[in-house]
């Protein structure tokens, strides 16, 4: 384990000790923090095992050439549409979208497509949109989608054109990609 990871785990452990002690001595702020923490953990971590297991499958089964063909530099408008369709079906917000888009990037998807997926999966997920529509009205959600998607695509293309060459994105080569 890396030093940084040990530190991060220790911080979490320290908090849990504090929270549990507060729970037993009825220290209200600590109890409330524990409650909040638990809600978030449930929210974020409950979907993560499935998300990462699916990323694992993607990593092993989907060839780099396939991703390059459909989402790479020559993919054109189809690449963006594919990214948006993927995003529609996504779940879990940024926490899930980041590792998925990183995986797409590592497999040869071009930057603007990655950005479109990332942006669209944050604000244009269908399961989430249904919820939003029930609270804020279907009109609101439809207009928000119609306005957001072109903006996301345009800004992603813009970012790729202007900054694409020097973003220094860390490249991870997964050993499983090469097969054994």
């Amino acid at each position: 384990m890396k030093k940084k990871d040990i530190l991060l785990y220790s911080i979490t452990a320290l908090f849990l000790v504090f929270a549990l002690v507060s729970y037993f001595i009825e220290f209200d702020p600590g109890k409330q923090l524990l409650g909040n923490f638990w809600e978030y953990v449930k929210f974020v971590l409950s979907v993560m095992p499935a998300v990462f297991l699916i990323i694992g499958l993607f990593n092993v089964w989907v060839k780099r050439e396939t991703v390059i063909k459909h989402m790479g530099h020559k993919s054109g408008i189809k690449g963006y549409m594919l990214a948006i369709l993927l995003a529609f079906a996504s779940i879990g917000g940024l926490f899930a979208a980041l590792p998925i888009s990183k995986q797409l990037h590592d497999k040869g998807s071009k930057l603007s497509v990655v950005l479109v997926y990332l942006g669209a999966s944050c604000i244009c997920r269908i399961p989430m949109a249904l919820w939003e529509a029930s609270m804020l009205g279907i009109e609101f959600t439809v207009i928000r989608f119609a306005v957001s998607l072109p903006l996301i695509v345009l800004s992603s293309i813009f970012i790729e054109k202007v900054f694409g060459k020097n973003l220094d994105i860390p490249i991870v080569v997964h050993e499983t990609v090469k097969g054994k």
Partner: protein
Amino acid sequence: MTALYITCAVLYIASLIASPKKTWMAIKSGTKMLMKILPQFLVIILVMTFVLYVFPPENIVTLLSKSGNWVNVLVASIIGSIVVIPGFIAFPLAGILKEIGVGYAVLASFTTTLMLVGVLTFPLEKQYFGTKFAIIRNVASYIIAIIISIIIGLILGGLI
């Protein structure tokens, strides 16, 4: 969430039939990636916990029910960029805001920045994509969110 796990199970069954060896590799690779990012996840959740404690959702309602819509669009965008609230709190909260008469532009500004701009999740984004990417994406996202709010305000009303 159930749908997600069912999808995951179906995919794994298919994979298992096709190649048990590759399936095992998929499990290993997925687990490895999750374990690599888990400590970062936990600490960000911890920070989110404290932010939610210091600044509970009720305060957001109080804050956004004051002052005019233009100011509120900005205030909402700043709150939305910083806090991370799960959907099951965020949307009912937006519903309450709508009930008390907060304009559509403000609602759009709040929900869009909430989902798209992540100050607290910045370290996570940095770990995956590097600092430059994270800064540029978040700044661009913030600008997009403001444009979306203005257009929604113009169409649905509630800007002036």
